[in-house]
């Protein structure tokens, strides 16, 4: 389903940032350093199983 990566990234940021706007930037930077550029994905982005796996692992840790 297209857009799953963006949805997972948005969920991760929301859960980690917990309404703290300053944290959003830091969490996005942490993702970037993991090789995940949150700004590059949209609701139309194709799924990437490797990336989805990485995001699932991060969400599981939460």
């Amino acid at each position, binding site marked *: 389903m297209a857009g799953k990566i963006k949805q997972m990234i948005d969920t991760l940021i929301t859960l980690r940032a917990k309404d703290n706007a300053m*944290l959003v930037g*830091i969490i996005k930077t942490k993702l970037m*350093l993991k090789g995940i550029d949150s700004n590059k994905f949209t609701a139309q982005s194709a799924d990437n199983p490797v990336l989805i796996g990485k995001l699932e692992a991060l969400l599981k840790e939460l």
Partner: protein
Amino acid sequence: MSIKTAFSLNPDPQNAVADIRTQLQDFDPKLIVFFASSSLAPDEIAERMEAAFPTAETFGCSTAGEITTGKMLTKSIVAMAFNRQAIKNSKVEVLEDLDKESYRAFNAFQRHFNKPMKEMDPKQYVGIILVDGLCRKEELIMDKMGDLTNVNFIGSSAGDDLKFESTYVFANGKSYNHAAVLAILEPATDITFVKTQSFRELPQKLTVTKANEFTREVYEFNGKPAAVAYAEALGVSVEEAPKRFMHNPVGLVFEGEPFVRSPQQIKGDTMLFYCSVKEGMELSLLESTDIIASTKQSLDAARSELGGISGVINFNCILRTLELNQKGLSDEYGKVFEGVPTVGFSTYGEQYIGHINQTATLLVFR
């Protein structure tokens, strides 16, 4: 005064620590961070600092040069002491074996502060990390800690005066290698973080198409041998390219902010970096600018943000120090911190959010 600094150029650890103790004699410290030249025996310096300040937690590391208020030094020990007006609460822990994943330190923090690391408010707490500078595990540690907590850790990799033999971190009166020291502080005053790197982004892009992130090697950029692609981006031969490393590193640029990755050497067609890069990362070629001007600007911005500065811990990359030395600007860099209680050192890598190179990461107290 809630923060006080001291330094000693005495080459004997016993006398150097006694000197520090004398300078801090009217101060009741709760926490002391210190940075010591590798010319001072690490076991002895750690033990004597702990013994000299029995009411304080002491921690620190070995260096490739030291920084204190208004000066850059070598073969010295510098120390910053915090009393209870500066730090409400603190805990220092050691990750003793970086090859083993260990939650022991985090469990200790959770017991001390009586809350899970996941719930510690980054507005209330700040972390300092000092890591063995030769372990090549800084990226993994920062990545793991970043997953486990929102507390911001700032710090650096220990040095050994450019010998590249053994670096040490200090805590509990001991010295450790292949280890990291983590400290979590609850400051009693506002703090801010500064990450300053003196580079502009150039239009040339180098996408990592083949790499080993664990050995920090890049085999290919843009589908070409890494050394060839880097040299082409610069418009020089592969033989000339190493001379440009300091002036033209590469950076992962995110929302305008570069996270510098400095080339270390070329081995055949492969490039070895001082920091890991992942396959798929798009890196920008960078060009160095004015270290003095950009550091001053960053410090002034921090001062405006906080409304004043009572202390700075400056983790300044050794590559910046070497560039400053080459240009005869070390004194001028020291003077950027004149009148501001400062300690710091020349590092083998810096940490803020992740592991980075050719950067100064500063923890600034109001």
